[in-house]
């Protein structure tokens, strides 16, 4: 897919990022040397089991890492600045909300219960776009309409508890897009919602990103929803990106054994009468050093070298690379699981829950 990169400019570039948490005197290595380019206007999905570091990675982009976490290595380049070097709240004030915004997982608890939703959206406009109250109100009503909330005049004056989960998530999205940020990070925006509402929220985010020309980083542990929203997919495992490529590349030509395992557990690939595939074992502990390929202990076909040396990235195409020794010319030929072939037959991969 060489033409994917045509006319694409890098908007955010993560270089060899390493993040550690100190937890009861121990050090937890949550992000282990991640490099990732995000292109302007694209929709990038980050997938992986929970605990793989998706949230931690993206929290760095808006300076909201938990207090016990530090960036001990690496850069996050954005508009000529290195966000990894930011120290003060004043520096972040120029980025947060204005340039990079975030939609969080749980809409039930993300809104201030004592303020009207109109107030909460207006606040973002007043603080970030210097509007006065009247301007902010008018703009808020527009945005409410944009996110699909009917009767905005009446809804403006209502409190979060008067909204359902799906409607609250629309409000949270409204707050995020209020400042028309360059990058919108959606951290599992539909996980807490009903399946029927998930699809609506997904298409809303897609429409808004097109309308406002935002770059989206879409985090999910559900590979099924990704197919609908993402131009590109990055697969995370144990604080590392093990494979990245365009949606077609990752779906139809996956290279990393972990990506295979993830896809094999898609419910769409389950056969009647057979138990759905689920990945055996548990992710590695992030305390201490991980040797070799972090996925090796859970991979029945792991090679000897997988236990000893961490694989480098091998390029499959200019947009597709994976960190696995299987791509080394000297490696034995191991084929992806049979069931993945059926993915091509399934034209439409719809939302479904991945096994965690």
């Amino acid at each position, binding site marked *: 897919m060489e033409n994917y990169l045509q006319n694409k400019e890098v908007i955010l570039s993560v270089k060899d990022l390493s993040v550690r948490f100190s937890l009861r005197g121990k050090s937890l290595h949550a992000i282990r040397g991640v490099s990732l380019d995000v292109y302007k206007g694209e929709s990038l999905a980050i997938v992986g089991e929970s605990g793989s570091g998706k949230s931690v990675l993206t929290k760095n982009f*808006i300076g*909201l890492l938990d207090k016990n976490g530090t960036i001990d290595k690496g850069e996050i380049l954005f508009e000529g600045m290195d966000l990894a070097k930011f120290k003060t*709240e004043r520096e972040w*004030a120029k980025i*947060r*909300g*204005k340039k990079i*915004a*975030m939609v*969080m997982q*749980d809409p039930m*608890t*993300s*809104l*201030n*219960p*004592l*303020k009207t939703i109109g107030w909460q959206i207006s*606040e*973002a406009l007043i*603080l*970030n776009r210097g509007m006065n109250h009247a301007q902010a109100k008018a703009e808020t009503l527009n945005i409410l309409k944009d996110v699909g909330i009917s009767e905005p005049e009446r809804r403006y004056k*209502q*409190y979060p*508890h*008067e*909204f*359902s989960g799906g*409607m609250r998530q629309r409000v*949270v999205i409204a*707050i*995020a897009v*209020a*400042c028309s940020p360059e990058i919108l990070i959606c951290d599992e925006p539909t996980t807490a919602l009903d399946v029927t509402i998930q699809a609506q929220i997904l298409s809303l985010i897609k429409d808004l990103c097109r309308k406002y020309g935002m770059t989206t980083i879409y985090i999910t542990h559900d590979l099924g929803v990704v197919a609908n929203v993402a131009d590109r997919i990055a697969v995370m495992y144990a604080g590392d990106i093990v494979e990245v490529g365009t949606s077609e590349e990752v779906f139809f030509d996956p290279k990393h054994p972990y990506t295979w395992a993830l896809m094999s557990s898609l419910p769409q690939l389950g056969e009647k009468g057979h138990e759905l595939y689920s990945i055996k074992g548990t992710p590695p502990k992030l305390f201490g050093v991980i040797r070799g390929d972090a996925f090796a202990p859970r991979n029945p076909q792991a090679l000897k070298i997988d236990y000893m040396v961490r694989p480098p990235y091998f390029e499959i195409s200019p947009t597709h690379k994976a960190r696995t020794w299987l791509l080394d010319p000297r490696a034995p030929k191991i084929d992806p699981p049979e069931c993945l072939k059926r993915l091509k037959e399934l034209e439409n991969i719809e939302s479904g829950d991945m096994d965690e």
Partner: protein
Amino acid sequence: MLEYILKRTAGAIISLFVVITLIFVLLRLMPMEGYFGAEYDKLSEEVRASMLAEKGLDQPIYVQLFNFYKSLFQGDLGKSWIYRPNYPIVKILEKKIPYSLKIGVISMIFSLIVGIPLGAVMARFKGKFADKLGTAFIAIVEALPTAVLMLFLQLFFSSWFNLSLLFDKNNYATWVLPIFSISLLSICSYAMWMRRYMIDNINMDYVKLARAKGVSGSRIMFRHVFKNAFVPMAQFLPGSVLSTIIGSIYIEHLYSIPGTGSLLIDVIQLQDNTMVQALVLIYAAIGIAGMFLGDVLMALIDPRISFVKKGDDR
């Protein structure tokens, strides 16, 4: 909202009714020595009967209760027996209540104005010097026995600032120490709870969202967290109205303030039961009114409380 307040009002009236009845019945169940002194047993049958009849105690208890309520509704609390024999209690209280009320209300307002912001500032600078200083101060005040602390305040402050040891209604300087003493404990408990509730709130998701949308640290504290932390405080305030009152009973005694608190101690010692009954009734009414106001205050701040579910909106 109106419906909610009406419900709470009904609840408050019922509690008041129950409490008054209970006090009345309990005082009637006391041994008769309690009413007429140790000599009662030695008196002749006729004398006893006439003494009982004179005070209306010869009738069955439900009749007495009925008569009590009847006069209560006419604003009559009965007559004192011993404190000022046969003098209407309402007249006695008329002179006493204004002092207690003024001192109580001023102390309440003062503790709120100092305690709540103190807690908020401590939460804002959690772990910093201001927080540590405040925490140490609160720990000392809470750890010392109240009586010792109050005596200490009275003796040392009056000599340091050259204030009179006793209360004089015409000299406002003498109001300062009693009010300060009553407020001190509530200031500490307000500050402590406010700090705790604010810190609880800082870790909530809505604060993360507010930060993510670019709201500054102080603005988050004062526009978002403060009000949320105040909701549980509002619920807790009525209890503290009660403790302010109870504090004032001791303080009025200590400074010889001619209020209802010192009066209560006097009439208990004198075993003037109609007076005890009237005063306990007033304190119970204040307590219940405090709880009622706490509920209403909370409903005013928190839209979820008086919310009636409208299914069609969701």
